[in-house]
């Protein structure tokens, strides 16, 4: 997917910081956003994702560093003069204007003559499949229709970049899936850059070419959804994304047969570069819940653990099992409901989990944020 985007950065965050008094919301951020890519910025609330987006929109001024749009420094350019329209979490449609007038707003502010304004607004309403709602009041629209009006209003000026601040968070689950489809398709058809801020992993992974994971004002990882899902770069990312089990330990044997010593025993690891780790290095071993297998009998392999069944969360064909390890820590397993039914586990029952040496992922305990 990412090869559809050209390599020229449209937006550059060059050492950008934002401080409010003593609080640093964004910490020396370096980020390049390419022309035509769908970039998601994801993180828990207060991680600085919305602040970054607002700085790009010109609604906040960076305390330090430089933001460049198309190579030009834009720190001092006010929101009014940037063409960086935003779709708001609250949508921020003007309640006293009808649908058509809402969509025309951006053109009106740019002194586009009335006739052209109307034609362009109608074109976008048609594109968003809501032309028949043109004369309606905002209050008469459903959640999904409002969403489409908000998109039309932002896109009517035909910008090169669209900023989206958790636009789907107010919709119910079914509608979210549908709007994800609409957004994805729209971005591909228009070929413009979408910067999408969200706290939802499913939204970020479903639509974006690249995902930025932020925590406490810093970028923890930047990569494709698959990279982030399978190779979390830090313990934070491993905790935040997906359903990962993390065992802390240290390298007891390096080289060909990498072995990790943990409080729960010794584990083998067969990962990427052999010489990246040295004996004594402390690190975190990440085992994704969906790569774990279970059995009632001891599988006899080295990468196995005995645990006690706590509970299950059933969401259809896939079940998440919650178990407790011997040292009291939690362990999550995702498996097919069909396979689990055969085992008929009761609370407190003992069983074994095991995984392939190639499926563990290692994170050196000093995360990149401290490096």
């Amino acid at each position, binding site marked *: 997917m990412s090869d559809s985007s050209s390599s020229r950065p449209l937006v550059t965050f060059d050492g950008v910081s934002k401080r409010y008094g003593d609080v640093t919301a964004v910490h020396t951020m370096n980020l390049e956003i390419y022309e035509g890519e769908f970039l998601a910025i994801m993180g828990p609330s207060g991680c600085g994702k919305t602040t970054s987006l607002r700085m790009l929109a010109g609604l906040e001024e960076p305390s330090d560093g430089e933001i460049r749009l198309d190579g030009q420094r834009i720190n001092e350019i*006010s929101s*009014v003069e940037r063409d960086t329209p935003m779709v708001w979490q609250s949508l*921020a449609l003007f309640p006293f204007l009808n649908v058509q007038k809402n969509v025309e707003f951006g053109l009106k502010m740019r002194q586009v003559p009335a006739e052209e304004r109307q034609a362009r607004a109608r074109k976008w309403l048609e594109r968003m499949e809501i032309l028949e709602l043109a004369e309606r009041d905002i209050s008469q629209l459903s959640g999904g229709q409002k969403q489409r009006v908000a998109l039309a*209003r932002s896109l009517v000026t035909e910008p090169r970049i669209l900023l989206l601040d958790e636009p789907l968070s107010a919709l119910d689950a079914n509608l979210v899936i549908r709007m994800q489809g609409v957004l994805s398709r729209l971005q591909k058809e228009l070929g413009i850059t979408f910067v999408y801020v969200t706290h939802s992993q499913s939204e970020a992974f479903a639509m974006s070419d690249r995902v930025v994971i932020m925590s406490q004002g810093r970028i923890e990882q930047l990569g494709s959804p698959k990279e982030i899902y399978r190779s979390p770069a830090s313990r934070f990312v491993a905790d935040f994304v997906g359903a990962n089990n993390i065992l802390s330990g240290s390298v007891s044997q390096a080289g060909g047969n990498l072995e990790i010593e943990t409080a729960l025993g010794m584990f083998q690891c067969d990962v990427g570069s052999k010489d990246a780790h040295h004996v004594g290095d402390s690190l975190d071993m990440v085992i994704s819940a969906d790569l774990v297998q279970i059995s009632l009998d001891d599988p006899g392999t080295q990468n196995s653990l005995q645990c006690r069944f706590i509970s299950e969360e059933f969401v259809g064909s896939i079940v998440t099992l919650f178990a407790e390890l011997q040292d009291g820590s939690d362990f999550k397993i995702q498996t097919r409901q069909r396979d689990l039914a055969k085992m008929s586990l009761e609370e407190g029952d003992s069983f074994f989990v095991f995984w392939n040496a190639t499926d563990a992922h290692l994170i050196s305990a000093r995360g990149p944020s401290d490096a």
Partner: protein
Amino acid sequence: MSKGASKNLLLRGYVVLVFIFVFTPIVTSFIFSVNSDRFPTIPLGHFTTHWYETIFADPDVWDAFRVSGIVSITVATLSTFIGFCTAYTDYRYKFTGKALYLSLALLPPTIPLVIMGLAMLALLARINMSGEIYSIVVSHVVLCSPFAMAVIRMRLAQINPDLESAAWNLGASNWRAMREVIVPFCRPAIASAFCLTAAVSFDEFAVAWFVSGLNKTVPVIILEILQGNTDPQINAIGSIVFITSMTLVILAQLILMRKTINQTATGI
């Protein structure tokens, strides 16, 4: 009849009694304004518009209505403008001394009117500005602006702060966003504040009495008529003032309520 139902009936009866208590004097005044007898006695005489004809034949009364009209419209315009600006400042900006700013802005209606009137007269007389129509306007603007501000501030408290940012984001300058977003959003409150301040000014007696000089407003002329002779002219003019003010106040309420109902219906 169940206990709940009788209690309900009792409460309804109580509400009716309260309304009777409040409105009887006004209704009585209105009835005697169209009654032929010179003194308010029962049994009533016959229906007449004589007292209305008398007051409308009096050029002083016409003058008073003219002055009151000019004053209340000017005052409503100015106070609504000042009230809007004050409310917007409060909504938009954070600054040190904001609490002080707000309490000063809301202070005037808490000052007893007689003291306010006296103070206004003392000041205006000293700077040679008393006894003119604009003296009443100045004094009433001081008195009315806080009401306008309170009404508009309530409306601004309901605005989604993203609306203004969205306007900037779509290319509207500060002024343009104010004109295209803030003012339209506040329009019902602005109209309501206008009616309300017009009513307050139209009704106000004490301050007007001190500073009006020869430019008497309606409430001032009422007192003068009352001092001269007691006949149902007073009831007639009183009824007119009551109807004018009530119309303005009810209008103010309706404008605000319609907006609220609209919004409850949409669930935002």
